[in-house]
């Protein structure tokens, strides 16, 4: 999202200008998406987009609806209302075309602990129809890039938490996606491992032009130049560049800005679905 404005409390930004330009088709476009678990509304009329080659942080507390949103984007859940597109491919109508452009790192570990590092990568490659020879080449490349080449034959259960996360990121990149989703990818890691992973993902944006949606509840993972979507109790409270959101809320930092946004939303009763 190349935000030029920072709407507050669920207002939708005028982004038709960007979408009308075919050269800037959003990497991810979420239009009017709502989702309920029975009577409980987990997401309410979500609208935002992620631009190619950008880093967008999805900030929300536990229970905000981040994982539900990720499950919808990855088609683990069916879309009940609204529309989600990845580089213009509707996830409901053309899931194959959309998912092949998408790499995902889920919040829980999804590696097979009994298989080796390379075997996990080869399995993922097979699920994307990448033949064994090509998969081995790519596995070698991504492992070298994330500094795990020397652990290629190790069982995954022998890796540290940080190494597992790096491996999951490597796996998500194996089929060369153009959009990468990471759901709380640094949870449970030490400070250094967190910084390493965040740095690596940011380099993917600048060096490889991958669009990134980074879900987090940690304010210190966000920098002023990032695009930001603030998700709270299933609603988007604000989206735009971090610096702009901070300025619009009259705050000094994102932490205070987030507090003001959530308090304002509670005051105006917009959070009672």
């Amino acid at each position: 999202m190349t935000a030029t404005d920072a709407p507050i409390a669920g207002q939708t930004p005028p982004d038709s200008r960007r979408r009308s330009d075919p050269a800037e088709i959003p990497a991810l476009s979420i239009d009017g998406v709502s989702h309920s678990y029975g009577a409980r509304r987990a997401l309410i009329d979500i609208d935002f987009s992620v631009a190619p080659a950008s880093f967008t942080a999805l900030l929300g507390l536990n229970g905000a609806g981040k994982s539900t949103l990720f499950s919808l984007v990855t088609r683990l859940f069916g879309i009940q209302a609204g529309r989600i597109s990845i580089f213009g491919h509707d996830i409901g109508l053309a899931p194959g075309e959309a998912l092949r452009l998408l790499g995902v790192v889920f919040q829980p570990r999804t590696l097979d602990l009994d298989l080796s590092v390379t075997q996990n990568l080869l399995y993922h490659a097979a699920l994307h129809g990448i033949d064994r020879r090509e998969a081995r080449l790519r596995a070698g490349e991504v492992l070298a890039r994330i500094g795990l080449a020397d652990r290629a034959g190790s069982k995954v259960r022998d890796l540290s938490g940080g190494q597992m996360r790096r491996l999951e990121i490597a796996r998500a990149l194996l089929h060369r996606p153009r959009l990468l989703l990471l759901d709380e990818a640094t949870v449970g890691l030490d400070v250094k491992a967190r910084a390493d992973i965040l740095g690596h993902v940011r380099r993917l944006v600048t060096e490889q032009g991958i669009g990134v949606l980074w879900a987090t509840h940690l304010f210190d993972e966000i920098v002023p130049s990032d695009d930001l979507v603030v998700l709270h109790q299933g609603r988007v409270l604000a989206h735009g560049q971090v610096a702009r959101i901070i300025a619009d809320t009259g705050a000094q930092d994102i932490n205070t800005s987030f507090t003001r946004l959530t308090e304002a939303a509670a005051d105006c009763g917009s959070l009672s679905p």
Partner: protein
Amino acid sequence: MSSTVIKDQPAGFSLAQYVTCLNGIVWREGLRFLHQRERFVSALVRPLVWLFIFAAGFRQVLGISIIPPYETYILYEVYIAPGLIAMIQLFNGMQSSLSMVYDREMGNMRTLLVSPLPRWYLLSCKLLAGTAVSLLQVYAFLLIAWFWDIEPPPIGYLTVLPALVLSGLMLGALGMLISSGITQLENFAGVMNFVIFPMFFASSALYPLWRVQEGSPMLYYVCLLNPFTHAVELIRFALYGQMNWISLAVVGGCTAAFMIGAVFAYDPSRGLSRRGPAGGET
């Protein structure tokens, strides 16, 4: 929303990509099986205990008259061998479904479900992989059983293969369908009580149906309606180079029905979406 899309790869998937995916899933299932040696041993020990102990004890109690496909009087061990083969596949099918529930709870299932290939195809590959594993177990059992005088005609080892594939697919699809409805790993114990044991005992695996009919006409009809009975009979006839057409039709029909049900249940717009994210996720 612009209708423009970005296409940097050809639309759809080639046949080679589908085959690569199938190979990958079978390969991964095989690796997991090799890593779980105790699973292989227990899969063999269970039917062998029935063969060596149960059958030896009941040999003198249960008389078996000459019934197709047998052309002469047979030992009780010979009679229950096809039932034990089907039991291996039944347990394997349920084991596969247990691992699917485990994978779903642990998150591994997401790796499979976010593949861009069609979901029905991914689940079919998973089913084929589970069936392939069950074939290894069955032939290992048949090898040991041969030393216990279970000696079907040599051609039977070949003619039984298609029957094993079909019955393995049916029982695997049933397991997959059941796993789609289980929300917690702890609930799987119920499957043992409500699916495996009733299916096994209310079938022709341990006693011929005419014997059941003599004892309880009601149970006889239950056995007739039990798809596991037909899996057993399909295997029994195929092991002796013969075809039981009714069993073939029932097993084939049930395979299709269970598979359609499983694909339907794993469809994101119907199944998983009602449950919400796994515990701890937001």
